[in-house]
């Protein structure tokens, strides 16, 4: 593979042939692009077109392919070839569809196409076809941390799919909180009555499954390695520790109930007759279908009041700012415990907003039919008085302060995630900017996974102590490759959602371990064989790559050089963008493969009045948005040259400074939304790029250039009009401030 043999294939279909002078393009590819073979084809994606490419590959005449046709996002199946590096020059979406079909436009449109051919050839020249680096044999064993409903379901799902699973459970029994319920909210039609939890059957199924082993009273003292070969130390109560190898990990550690002792105003701790929802489950289990008794005197409860959102959805200090999602339905279920045993018991649910997700609407209605009273009101306090509880509230419908006398009060408190150590925690006094309610939620700070990664022992958290799992696009995916979060550890949820979650996370885990076994990237570049490597001699041990990698893929060796853990890596290139000495590269994506494209563009001299705008567009969102703009025939400036990048995080600032030094008039960067509601496929890539580019102004000033020439934007895949508008805006800016002084 040492000798570079480029084959350039120019398609004349889809109007390309009519709109462009393909003979001239052929010349460019041959003379400037140094392509050994250049062919034109009426319809390149047709069988004969594809065959002509394959023939050249098979004959050994070419090992780098330039396909000058449609966008790299189109015809991916047709243009898939083995053992060659492929570059796509986008003549359709990138040129003819965004330019007017007029005589006057012809010259600039042809120039655009010519440049994309030069760029394609330059890229092809600097890529090598990636080959798999198989790190390990496939380990078809999933570690499941937590033996609650999530963990049990995940284990059974893994087993059903033919994989082995090990459940590590901290406590002495399986079933988690679900096993402590009397009944569960209905998950089957007609959604009118509480149902059996079914947890005993589930436990029995797990225990009798030969593919599943269970470790009770056990914790994880150390997790090392990477997907496909995690080495996990499991310590049991007896003090014995053993090390097992797993392909992937599912963290199903669930939640801890919010500590109701923090709600003395609602009477908790002041009277035994104020309980939380789990407390009521205990009473219901004791009653076992008979009348539920008051804890204080053992008398039958005649009048029960449920207080929704107790210490939840509240901005008060120490309360949970979020909704735990299941508690309205749970209170309806618990009110039914009373009504079903004795319709004469008065049950009142006090809510501010009743939320009954899933099939809860039917369940809510069933509760009303059974005579449960729903009252919209804010509870101010619960005062125990002579053996009864005085619930004082403001009735929001009748707009008055009232009190209800109750024998028993149930507080609907929330879920606190068992997500382990918050590795990004800032000391409390440094957190002055935190909005109220965003402030720290106390969580048990014992590590769960004890990862030996340099980035910290647990998975990063997003908000309110829940593990970051990108629920907008990819649920269960976390910032630690091969480790999936499922159940209430990633967001509050009910049992129905937990079961779905467990199945989803299990399938992701299986995918990850299979990919790792083949040396392929996990989601979102699943199947990618390329992998970052670094030139040790050049590395200055600055550690930027280790710090900026969003996935904790890079460790350090004893000499403090980076160690890239291939199967932990998502191939985003953020490390490549970070490296100040530019020693990190992929076989088919590198500082050079993009840098040479930038250089290949023909820069007209300063008298030509033809500026050049470089757009570096994220291939996940901004680039498709531009493609869609083209499908809608939204025109944009012919002076623009667009290069797709894996993630904006992979943009090395050298590209920007080289472009400006080389005579480009401006550079526009388009990445995904960053921050708390990020849409970046690689979590932090866009954020890193924005941060790095915020420093570029100094460089521009040194070059005596206007800072407006470099702009960084957040562009969503739906910003079809905006994406092309941003290009036109920049063209207008150049018009106003004039061409770059760096034309040669």
């Amino acid at each position: 593979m040492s000798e570079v043999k480029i084959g350039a294939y120019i398609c004349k279909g889809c109007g390309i042939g009519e709109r462009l002078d393909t003979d001239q393009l052929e010349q460019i590819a041959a003379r400037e692009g140094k392509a050994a073979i250049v062919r034109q084809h009426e319809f390149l994606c047709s069988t004969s077109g594809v065959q002509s490419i394959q023939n050249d590959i098979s004959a050994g005449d070419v090992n780098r392919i330039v396909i000058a046709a449609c966008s790299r996002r189109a015809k991916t199946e047709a243009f898939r070839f083995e053992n060659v590096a492929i570059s796509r020059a986008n003549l359709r979406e990138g040129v003819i569809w965004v330019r007017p079909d007029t005589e006057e436009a012809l010259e600039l449109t042809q120039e655009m196409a010519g440049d994309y051919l030069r760029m394609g050839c330059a890229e092809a020249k600097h890529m090598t076809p990636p080959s798999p680096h198989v790190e390990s044999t496939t380990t078809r064993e999933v570690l499941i941390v937590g033996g609650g409903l999530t963990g049990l379901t995940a284990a059974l799902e893994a087993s059903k799919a033919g994989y082995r699973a090990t459940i590590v459970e901290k406590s002495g029994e399986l079933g988690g909180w679900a096993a402590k319920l009397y009944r569960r909210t209905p998950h089957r039609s007609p959604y009118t009555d509480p149902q059996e939890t079914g947890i005993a059957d589930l436990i029995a199924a797990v225990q009798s499954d030969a593919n599943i082993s269970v470790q009770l009273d056990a914790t994880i003292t150390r997790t090392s390695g990477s997907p496909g070969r995690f080495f996990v130390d499991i310590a049991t109560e007896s003090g014995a520790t053993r090390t097992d190898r797993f392909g992937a990990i599912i963290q199903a550690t669930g939640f801890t109930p919010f500590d109701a002792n923090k709600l003395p105003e609602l009477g908790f701790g002041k009277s035994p007759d104020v309980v939380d929802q789990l407390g009521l489950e205990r009473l219901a289990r004791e009653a076992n279908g008979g009348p539920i008794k008051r804890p204080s005197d053992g008398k039958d409860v005649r009048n029960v009041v449920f207080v929704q959102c107790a210490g939840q959805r509240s901005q008060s200090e120490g309360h949970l700012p979020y909704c735990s999602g299941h508690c309205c339905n749970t209170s309806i279920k618990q009110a039914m415990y009373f009504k079903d045993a004795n319709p004469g018991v008065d049950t009142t649910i006090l809510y501010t907003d009743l939320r009954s997700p899933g099939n809860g609407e039917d369940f809510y209605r069933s509760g009303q039919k059974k005579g449960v009273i729903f009252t919209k009101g804010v509870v101010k306090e619960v005062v125990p008085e002579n053996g009864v509880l005085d619930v004082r509230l403001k009735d929001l419908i009748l707009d008055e302060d009232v009190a209800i006398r109750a024998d028993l009060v149930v507080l609907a408190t929330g879920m606190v995630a068992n997500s382990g150590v918050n590795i990004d925690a800032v000391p409390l006094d440094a957190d002055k900017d935190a909005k109220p309610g965003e402030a720290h939620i106390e969580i048990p700070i014992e590590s769960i996974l004890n990862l030996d990664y340099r980035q910290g022992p647990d998975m990063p958290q997003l908000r309110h102590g829940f593990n970051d799992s990108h629920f907008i696009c990819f649920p269960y995916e976390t910032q630690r490759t091969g480790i999936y979060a499922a159940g209430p550890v990633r967001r509050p949820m009910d049992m129905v959602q937990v079961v779905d979650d467990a199945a989803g996370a299990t399938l992701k885990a299986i995918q990850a371990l299979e990919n790792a076994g083949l040396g392929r990237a996990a989601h979102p570049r699943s199947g990618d064989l390329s992998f970052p490597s670094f030139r040790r001699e050049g590395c200055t041990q600055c550690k930027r790559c280790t710090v900026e990698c969003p996935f904790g893929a890079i460790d350090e060796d004893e000499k403090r050089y980076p160690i890239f853990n291939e199967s932990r890596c998502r191939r985003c290139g953020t490390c490549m963008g970070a490296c100040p000495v530019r020693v990190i590269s992929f076989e088919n994506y590198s500082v050079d493969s993009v840098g040479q494209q930038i250089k290949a563009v023909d820069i007209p001299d300063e008298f030509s009045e033809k500026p050049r705008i470089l757009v570096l567009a994220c291939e996940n969102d901004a680039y498709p948005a531009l493609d869609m703009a083209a499908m809608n025939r939204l025109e944009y400036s012919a002076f623009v040259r667009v290069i797709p990048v894996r993630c904006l995080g992979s943009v090395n600032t050298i590209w920007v400074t080289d472009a400006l030094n080389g005579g480009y008039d401006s550079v526009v960067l388009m990445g995904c939304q960053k921050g708390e509601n990020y849409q970046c496929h690689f979590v932090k890539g866009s954020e890193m790029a924005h941060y790095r580019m915020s420093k570029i102004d100094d460089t521009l000033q040194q070059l005596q250039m206007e800072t407006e020439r470099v702009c960084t934007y957040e562009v969503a895949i739906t910003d079809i009009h905006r994406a092309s508008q941003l290009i036109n805006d920049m063209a207008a800016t150049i018009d106003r401030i004039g061409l770059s002084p760096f034309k040669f």
Partner: protein
Amino acid sequence: MDDLNLAMRDRYRNNFLQEVEANVEEGEWAKMCMQCGVCSGSCPFGPHWDHPPQEIFMMIRANKREEVLSSTSMWLCTSCYNCIVRCPREIPITHIMHGLASYAQRLGLAPKEQPTRKFGLMFWDNIEKNGRVNESILGIKLYFMNGFKEGVKTAYKMAPVGWNMLRTKRFNPFALIPFLHKRCKKRSDIQAILRKAQQIENARTVRFGTAGG
């Protein structure tokens, strides 16, 4: 505040709700309201009610028996059916409003001076006596509903209309003379039917104590 609380401690007991369920037409629906407020927002008279339908349903559940039954609110319902059409819970609100009004009337709790109530009684009386409606008498009685002086004033004001109706044979002055106007043939039968209906209704009515308990 504390006395008030004490007085209200029987709030949200289900007694009145059970009474409504048992004795008011379509009353078993009262518990199904989900307090969305669509009915109150849809009712053309909503702004004029002391307690629009949504609030009435909440008051029933809050055990506010006297306040609901002595309210003028449900007497304002014009049976436009806007609320029924729009209620997401498909509650027959209009029927419940009329049911509540009529139940309040039976219990003697309805507001005495409420004009809809007064008119309703006149209408009923008219039908009961004649076996059919005598519109002339009903109309004149309506004029005099609020006393002789006002009746004369209204009659005077309406005289031109009356005259035109007379000319176009829409109004028969002889119908005003008690022994001349037409009645239905077997009035006693109708009266017997009504008596029987009343009996059945009375027998069906469940007796509840007054508030509290």
